[in-house]
């Protein structure tokens, strides 16, 4: 690789924008990746969880005596034992009208879903730990289980949570514009309900945590498959606080150094964020405290404990085999294993197996939308009303709660189309199922329901899917407002219309007509589906405050760069890569800024002792724009510092300094150049430093200002065998615009992976609970992830709308998954001539919809 990339650098083209090979691949392909199960620490103990076989039951008693006696077992913790030494999960994300039930890391008196953890075995091997699980006796008393949205909405059924109103945890409404007026004025109103069943994020590597305890200090080094190591560090630290609030506060008060440092930091924070803090919406905390005042007591104890703590865990994330959102949350297992290791004073690891992963590794997207569209007979949209329901399962995800998904619907639902008015009511219901986590484009079902509804409305009005979109899509300079009615501002980066128009050029409608006829001749049906969407990637500055006022406190990105005294360049990111090629793309960005080769730059991530705090870690399609942005800016700043020193050394003006392939020289005189090592060495000698870098710069990056949208139009061709319901996707086209691309290979990979998951969602994947909340899909024989055989060639057309920002690359991680389910179900509808209102379409269901077989009663 080095010769090709060096040529590029020498020729002045730079690495950014090039299809540079991934630097991660070599270690992965030869089996040298460092995944959590590869760590093999000396003396590590292994944990396994006893999990409930009941969907909903009381625990009358638990007997771990026999399990504890098994040779090789170090300790069996009952749920009650671990709960006694940990603090509960309290809501991190609240919204007015929502109650979030508190829960502990283990279940001790009641289980609420299949797989609910009730005991933890720590043993010398995972084999022995699993042997011990078979010896644990739990006396369960079965309770009525809530297995569906319908059951959860029904009053009078068994409640999962005593303090809730039935099984509805909250309901909240947002209104934009005059909705009644829009509905009264429109020629007609069309209403339809759309259902999406449950899916599961399925990373190749399951979750895992290895807690290494320092036997002398008790310090915890936590190795974790985490998208957000910093959040995990503070969450675990808080949940392991044992002292009372009063004791912690007294200890804090005695520590004058800590006290003054904290007060100074708090003062700085308030000064910097006064305005944002004033906007914060506290109605969620109010509704929470009304339902459960103890929330505040737990908050205080954990907060005071963090202030007083002498030591905090270190969290480290090395290579991670995918996550798709599921490894951002802190899970109950994380806290339980950390507590067990801390109590034992010995290192413990837990590697989730695939069955556990399918039980509770993260589930998503079980949602229902009743949409009413007010529309004129010419197809012009006027108003939209949405009644949405989200099935969060039993335990509310932490910290990103399903309520956040509902708030994202609020902002996204109207899509890139003009509307006069919009209202959405979202209900969060609780059922006896696994935990809902963010899944690649967590809000994506708004695109699915909206784009499906557009086709349905078009059909009712005698229009084509193309016509209804053409008439309503926002067009720059024609019908594009300055902001969505839901709040976020728009600029030329929200150019969905451009991708839509380009897609229409590429479709070849004449060929489509011939292909449809050909398919019919073979007893098949061929259909075409179109779907467009926009996503904040990272979005304009007012995006997060549109989602919820005050949340933009968390959306900057920190980064750091340093040059060692030997000239080594290191970039520190707070992102936690897990398949997105951060290492490659950040090297490209930094190498160009520094004028060096990619191999001259080291990217450091994942260690909370070495990187700066980040609440989000990797998520929200921010790795390119925000993480890449802060890499670029810190590198640029350091280069300027280097150029100043180099100019002195070369006795030239700073403006004349050029750097090519690491050769720092006066422009035009490369033969008399010096190296980064020469410059760093000079600085080290002058300042007499050995144990700190020669150059260092840390930055807080807030993005490029307005814009920040990624947009795309997906087109799917779906061919259905009317005899068997088997599906082929003869063509799939994505026209996307994520701004100037850092690495086309990486963007292509992100798009393809997202589309593959969309294909999975529609045709293969279903987390299948029966009406009694028994999970039917507990292995890969029943939870079907599409393989390379099921994924067609995916054509990708890049459009790169430039703006004036310094780092205008926009995010692309989630888009593929957002557009694909909509395009595919639209294509199925077109093929069968039936308006599909459900997202999961296995072969039997396709034949039912086609009228070939009788539907199951």
């Amino acid at each position: 690789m080095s010769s090709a990339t060096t040529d590029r650098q020498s020729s002045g083209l730079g690495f950014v924008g090039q299809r540079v090979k991934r630097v991660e691949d070599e270690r992965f392909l030869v089996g040298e990746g460092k995944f959590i199960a590869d760590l093999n620490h000396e003396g590590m103990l292994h944990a396994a969880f006893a999990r409930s076989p009941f969907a909903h039951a009381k625990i009358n008693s638990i007997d771990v005596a026999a399990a504890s006696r098994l040779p090789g077992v170090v300790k069996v913790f009952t749920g009650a034992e671990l709960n006694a030494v940990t603090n509960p999960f309290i809501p991190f994300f609240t919204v007015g009208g929502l109650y979030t039930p508190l829960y502990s890391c283990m279940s001790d008196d009641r289980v609420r879903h299949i797989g609910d953890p009730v005991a933890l075995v720590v043993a010398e091997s995972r084999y022995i730990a699993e042997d011990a699980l078979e010896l644990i006796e739990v006396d369960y008393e079965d309770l009525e289980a809530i297995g569906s949205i319908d059951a959860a909405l029904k009053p009078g059924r068994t409640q999962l949570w005593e303090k809730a109103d039935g099984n509805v945890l909250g309901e909240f409404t947002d209104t934009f514009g005059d909705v009644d007026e829009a509905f009264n004025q429109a020629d007609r109103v069309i209403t339809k309900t759309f259902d999406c069943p449950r899916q599961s994020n399925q990373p190749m590597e399951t979750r895992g945590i290895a807690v290494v305890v320092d036997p002398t200090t008790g310090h915890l080094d936590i190795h974790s498959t985490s998208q957000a190591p910093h959040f995990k560090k503070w969450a675990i630290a808080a949940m392991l606080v044992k002292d009372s609030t009063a004791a912690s506060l007294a200890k804090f008060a005695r520590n004058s150094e800590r006290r003054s440092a904290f007060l100074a930091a708090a003062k700085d924070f308030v000064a910097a964020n006064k305005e944002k803090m004033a906007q914060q919406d506290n109605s969620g905390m109010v509704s929470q405290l009304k339902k459960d005042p103890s929330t505040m007591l737990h908050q205080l104890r954990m907060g005071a404990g963090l202030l007083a703590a002498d030591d905090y865990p270190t969290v480290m994330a090395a290579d991670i085999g995918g996550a798709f959102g599921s490894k951002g949350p802190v899970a109950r297992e994380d806290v339980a294993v950390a507590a067990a290791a801390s109590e034992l004073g010995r290192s413990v690891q837990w590697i989730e197996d695939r069955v556990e992963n399918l039980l509770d590794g993260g589930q998503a997207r079980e949602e229902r939308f009743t949409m009413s569209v007010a529309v004129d007979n010419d197809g012009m949209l006027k108003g939209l009303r949405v009644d949405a329901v989200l099935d969060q399962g039993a335990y509310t995800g932490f910290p990103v709660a399903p309520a956040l998904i509902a708030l994202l619907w609020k902002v996204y639902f109207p899509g890139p189309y003009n509307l006069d008015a919009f209202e959405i009511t979202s209900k969060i219901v609780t059922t006896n199922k696994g935990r809902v986590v963010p899944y690649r484009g967590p809000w994506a079902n708004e695109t699915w329901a909206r784009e499906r509804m557009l086709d349905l409305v078009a059909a009712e009005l005698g229009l084509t899917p193309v016509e209804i979109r053409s008439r309503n899509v926002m067009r720059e300079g024609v019908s594009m407002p300055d902001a969505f009615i839901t709040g976020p501002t728009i600029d030329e980066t929200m150019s969905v219309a451009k991708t839509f128009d380009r897609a229409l050029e590429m479709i070849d409608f004449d060929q489509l007509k011939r292909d449809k006829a050909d398919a019919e001749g073979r007893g098949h049906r061929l259909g075409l589906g179109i779907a467009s969407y926009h996503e904040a990637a990272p979005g304009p500055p007012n995006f997060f405050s549109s989602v919820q006022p005050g949340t933009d406190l968390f959306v900057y990105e920190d980064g750091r760069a340093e040059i060692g005294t030997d000239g080594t360049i290191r970039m520190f990111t707070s992102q936690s890569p897990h398949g997105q090629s951060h290492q490659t793309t950040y090297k490209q960005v930094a190498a160009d800024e520094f004028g060096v080769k990619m191999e001259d730059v080291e990217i450091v991530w994942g260690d909370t002792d070495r990187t700066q705090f980040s609440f989000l870690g990797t998520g929200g399609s921010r790795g390119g724009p925000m993480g890449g942005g802060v890499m670029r800016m810190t590198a640029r700043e350091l280069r300027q510092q280097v150029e100043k020193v180099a100019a002195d050394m070369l006795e030239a003006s700073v403006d004349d300094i050029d750097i090519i392939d690491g050769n720092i020289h006066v422009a035009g005189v490369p033969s008399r150049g010096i190296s980064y090592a020469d410059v760093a060495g000079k600085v080290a000698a002058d300042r007499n430093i050995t144990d700190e870098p020669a150059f260092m710069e840390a930055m807080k990056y807030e993005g490029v200002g307005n814009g920040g949208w990624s947009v795309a139009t997906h087109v799917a061709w779906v061919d259905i065998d009317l005899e068997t319901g088997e599906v082929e996707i003869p063509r799939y086209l994505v026209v996307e615009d994520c701004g100037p691309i850092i690495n086309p290979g990486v963007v292509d990979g992100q798009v393809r992976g997202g589309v593959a998951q969309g294909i999975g969602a529609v045709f293969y994947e279903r987390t299948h609970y029966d009406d009694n909340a028994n999970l039917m899909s507990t292995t890969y024989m029943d939870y079907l992830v599409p393989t390379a055989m099921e994924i067609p060639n995916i054509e990708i057309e890049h459009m790169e709308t430039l703006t004036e920002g310094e780092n205008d690359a926009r995010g692309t991680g989630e888009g593929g998954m957002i557009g694909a389910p909509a395009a595919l179900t639209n294509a199925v509808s077109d093929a069968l001539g039936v308006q599909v209102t459900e997202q999961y379409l296995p072969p039997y269901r396709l034949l039912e919809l086609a009228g070939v077989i009788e539907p199951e009663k």
Partner: protein
Amino acid sequence: MKNPPFHYHRPATLDEALALLAEFGDDGKILAGGQSLLPVMALRLGPPAHVIDIGTLEELKSIEVSDTAVTIGAMVRHAEAEHSAEVAEYTPLVAAALPHVGHRAIRNRGTVVGSIAHADSAAEMPAVCLATSATMHLASAEGTRNVAAPDFFQGFFTTAIEPNEILTGVSFPAWGPTTSGTVVEVSRRHGDYAMCGVACALDVADNVINGAALAFFSVASTPVRIAEAENVLLGQAPSEATYQAAADVVTDTLEPEGDIHATAAYRLHLAGVLTRRGLAEAHDRIGVPA
């Protein structure tokens, strides 16, 4: 998903293996390719106390061809049979079935006979045994015996194999040039167990069907052969109408159950469609060198 402790035995001869089985009976289990047994053990679904690995037994590793049959030994991997010229020439239905068995990685380790002994009613090979009227060779410390395919498959994962017996091989009758067969199936993904499938064979001479076999899988607790549908075909000329008549009998006869991947109605519908498609394909393969 870690197996519980078990005793591992690796006999050097078939007699040793049979002696071990005689000793352990129900507590012993034969390990060949391990593609069914090992997942069952990892999931702790009734794991055996004693695992008897027959992987080194040379006498079970051959494919033998006689005038009347092709006999596949218990340690012949799917992949080896799949690529065997003799299997393709004399038992084209077996050859047609093998590419449908799992994925390539599974076929590299799993054995033909192991799949038959496991008797998953959704698997291809048990249905192929029924369709070809294969003979199962069983051995125990007390001697050997042969069991015909219809008597061998008795229920869900249940066969005529006694606790002290090993299924040492299976003989598939060698077919002449007027006979061929195929396996057609519909599965959720490439390599998955079928939601419905059929192993079928046709013997056609002078445009008259002289023999027919239809054995369905993934429709009941065992593979199911439907003689009534076969009889409809006999003496007829091969045609879409003939095949449809057989398909109608099939859908009148079968009573499959539903699961999360396929409803009962869908399975039944597929059985009819696949009857037609399978027979047409089987006919096309007659006289075509594999």
